[in-house]
């Protein structure tokens, strides 16, 4: 369960100007639920994900994941939290360019402390349909394949939480659909909580719950209860 208590995030611009990206947000993401986050650009969707991933600290309020207040963790603690309990999928894939698909996934497994990381990496790459592309580096893979590698990397440690920031935003509709389906399948298999930021209302409709943000505040929620 991911709980956001009165979370506010303020960024300070270089000129001293303060920009409130999230303003007193209260949310509860039940365990195992697939939730879509929607909203216009600049509404705070990605920042919300970053706070849940422990990549940013709140200005006010708390982010509590399975009883653990992320604000109380130091840098090392938050890194360990991400390694073991979180999988993150980015819109721009963000694969390690010099490494093969297999190495990209294996490295994530090693960081998470997974036993026999290489075998596990092979297994999840097979699972995402890339058994024939294990030794290819990102430059030799298509966009859809890169995102499959990124998804494999996110689930390699069987994390209870999956965060995805526009995971299909860089893909053509056919690939986007395939990647989305894969993500949902894996979420169901793992029983993870999936929080997915998307602009696509059709994709959002296929998830169990939805949160709509506007100017850093919650405009509406549905299916979270």
């Amino acid at each position, binding site marked *: 369960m991911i709980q956001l208590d009165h979370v506010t995030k303020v960024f300070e611009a270089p000129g001293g100007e303060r920009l409130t990206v999230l303003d007193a947000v209260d949310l509860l993401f039940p365990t195992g639920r697939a939730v879509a986050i929607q909203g216009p650009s600049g509404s705070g969707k990605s920042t919300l994900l970053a706070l849940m991933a422990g990549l940013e600290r709140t200005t006010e309020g708390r982010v509590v994941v399975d009883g653990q207040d992320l604000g109380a963790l130091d840098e090392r603690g938050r890194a360990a939290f991400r*390694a073991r309990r979180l999988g993150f999928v980015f819109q721009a894939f*963000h694969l390690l360019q010099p490494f093969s698909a297999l190495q990209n996934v294996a490295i994530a497994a090693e960081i998470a402390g997974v036993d026999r990381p290489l075998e596990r990496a092979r297994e999840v790459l097979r699972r995402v349909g890339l058994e024939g592309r294990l030794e290819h580096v990102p430059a030799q893979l298509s966009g859809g394949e890169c995102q499959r590698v990124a998804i494999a990397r996110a689930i390699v440690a069987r994390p209870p939480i999956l965060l995805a920031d526009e995971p299909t935003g860089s893909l053509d509709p056919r690939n986007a659909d395939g990647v989305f389906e894969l993500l949902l399948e894996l979420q169901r298999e793992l029983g993870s909580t999936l929080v997915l930021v998307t602009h696509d209302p059709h994709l959002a409709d296929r998830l169990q719950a939805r949160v709509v943000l506007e100017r850093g505040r919650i405009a509406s929620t549905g299916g979270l209860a």
Partner: protein
Amino acid sequence: MRAGTWSYAALMAAREAARQKGRLLMVVLCLAVGFAAFAATYGFSSRVLNAVQAESRGLLGADASVSVQGLMPQALQERIQSDPAIAGLAQVVDFPTLGATGEGATEKARLLEVRAVEGAYPLQGRVVLQGGSTLAAALARGVVVEGALAQAWGLAVAPEGAVEAELLARGQALRLGGRVVPVAGIVEQDDARQASAFALGPRIYLGLPLARDLGLVTARARLSSRLLLNLRPGTEGEALPRLKALARSVSINPEGRPRPSGEAKARIQSHEEAAANPEGRPRPSGEAKARIQSHEEAAAQLAQPLRNLNRFIRQLGLLTLLLALLGSWAILAAFLDGRRRDAAILRCLGAPPELAHRSFGLLTAGLLLAGGALGTLLGLLAARWMPRALAELIPAALRGAAPGAPPILESLLALALLALMVAPALARLGATAPLALLRDGAEPPVPRRVALLAWGGAAALAAFLVLRNAPTLGAGLGTLIVLAVLLGTLAGLLRLQLGFFRRSAARMPLGLRLAFGQLGARPGVSTLVMSVMGLALFLLLAAHFVKADLVAPILQAKAGDGRPNVFLLDVQPKQVAQVRALAKRITGHELREAPLVRARLRAVAGRPVEEAAEQPKGDNGKEPSRGTQFRTREQNLTWRAKLGPAERLTAGRYWAEDGQPHAEFSLEEGFAKEIGARLGDELRFDVQGQEVRGTVTSLRRVNWQSLAPNFFIVAHPSLLSGAPALTIAALEAPDAPMRQALQSALARETPNVIVVDLAEVGAKVGRVLDLVNLVAAALATLMLASALLVLSASLLSSRLGRQRDVALLRTLGAGEPLLLRSLAWEFSLLGGAAALTAGTLAWIGSWLYARKVLDLPSEPSPWLALQLLGLAALLTLVVGFLGSWRALRAEPLAVLRGE
């Protein structure tokens, strides 16, 4: 394996290394180039200097030596011989003389360095003869010649009992002192032989009794005599100070008789007395003292030319290393900055914050060590080859010396320097919030403290390295300033050029505009590549220009331009008429003569000149200042009624030709400055024991290029014309057969006259400078290689950006020719601008050096600069095209889609 551990960081570093082989190999190669240059020069330098110490006995031929100018006084020899510490003694007399071989058309003559020996020479070290004969056995039969002379003249050992008259024609004898002496041995190895580049001519050995018999060893000016001493084991410590005290207490008078110090000065020989002396030669000037040197002290003196050479070579090596460090830093910093995105991804995946620092830190350390070790290894191998390549500059005994210790401390310091330079880039790896970086957020600055500490530390280490390897603090500071100014000037000028071209780009063709766009996109790397390349080219050009300035005037003298190209030294008064006639008959030219009187300067404006004989240069590792050397050496004086044709008055007035005596001196202005004399100052000279005083009434500027007999000190005729003098003469002998005929005739008729052929001197100086140039060129090539490696690495790290640019241009409709043109412009500008700037600086620098330091009219040829300009442009063009090939061939749409 946990992600936060060092072992996991090492695993990540190993993976990174395996994946980035090409890029990282550039770093290793760039470092290896620098370390190889440094290790080679350092290894060579310490090898030779260590060998000088280790072989010091062999080089001196004894444990210690007693030396005097002129003949060794018998009494001094007896007093030294009676010292209880003496275990062995041999006498050596060195002097130059003309020697000849062959007869008629095959006759050859030249100046030789004669070493006349007596006793068990050498007491230490070896003189190995071809065929296994011993030196003593050979000297009992005749003369022993150096291998190089035997080869050049086709000399062979005369058979026992051969008829002397036939030997000369068969190349089995030499004519020395007007007589024929059979060749009895040819030297294969001589530990005591100095480097051939610093020798007057080939060496020959004679027995001292034979040399006396030939009339070559007399109380003449250019003899130097030594007693070589072997000391009883364990007595060196107490015997040397005792022998030195003995030498200090004995003054040598002109006849070579010792007398207690403080006794009335030796009488000066009058002109008449000198004329009456059987040899008709003047004595060494004034009083000199016997000088005792241990083998270590002698080694220090012998090492002096080597030390100067080593200083030059070592500084160049260090410069190459520093530039390679700069290049490696550029590649590493670009590489590490390129890995920031990956570090951010790892952080997002949950890697602990220290993982990136540790893994990239380990990778960097590994690269540094690999490059340093590879370079040092290659350098040490090169150091084994250098003594062979520079054989003419190194005494024979040192060429096979054991290698010196590798420069471990310097290498570690250099690695630490590079680590400090890279530290800010490593710090940046962890300084960005991961998500902000992945969203292409703004570049975070390096923490100010880290940057300050890192760059401050690096600058301090670089300065320390330069100062540590400099001969003196002043020279080190000078090197630092020159290096900083040169690099700063190069970098500044190149940036100015870039800026200027970019501003004028609007009026340029599209290809050129695109080229400037690419250069300007990475101004730091562009300037660095240009600066390193520019410095390499500067070095090559400056070395060439200076050599051309030094040697050209000497070589030009061959061309029959009216300037003399043969000097005759030590012409005795009674020989002048004979030599004059002989020269006229053979060359058709008149002699240009000047009298020469030897003297010692005793006081300048009432200030006594320091005693120099006890502290020769090189002792205690300290070299006397130039001024001290000028004041304390034996001076060559002449007298002239009026100014010579190559002289011009710059201050004061020259004496009038009124037939009246004037106690006046005229000094060359540079010399006056060195000895601290001004107009109106009184100079006091000791001319063979007699004091000669006079006032400086004029300063002159001398055109040394006239090659006429010119002097620093000219006296009024009334001051010196009564003193015994030798004649120095110069004449024109345009072609080599004429010079050879002159030498042969002089060797037959006046064998004591020394002939200096300027063509030979020019060739010798040219060879030395060629060797120095060889080292400079090798190091400059390494610098050039560093610059090209930096260029390759920068192309590699900017490949994606270049691919995008090319793809975009193609999408916009640019064709292949335009793209190729823009690349051609970009890379030829990179190399061309560097070469142009370096060439201009080198031209100006060498012009100033020749004019202001060497006082020569310099006209460096621009042709070499133009050739190098073309070469640099071509090299950068080739490397640039090779590095950009993949970017050119990439499919535009795939690149723009980010596939």
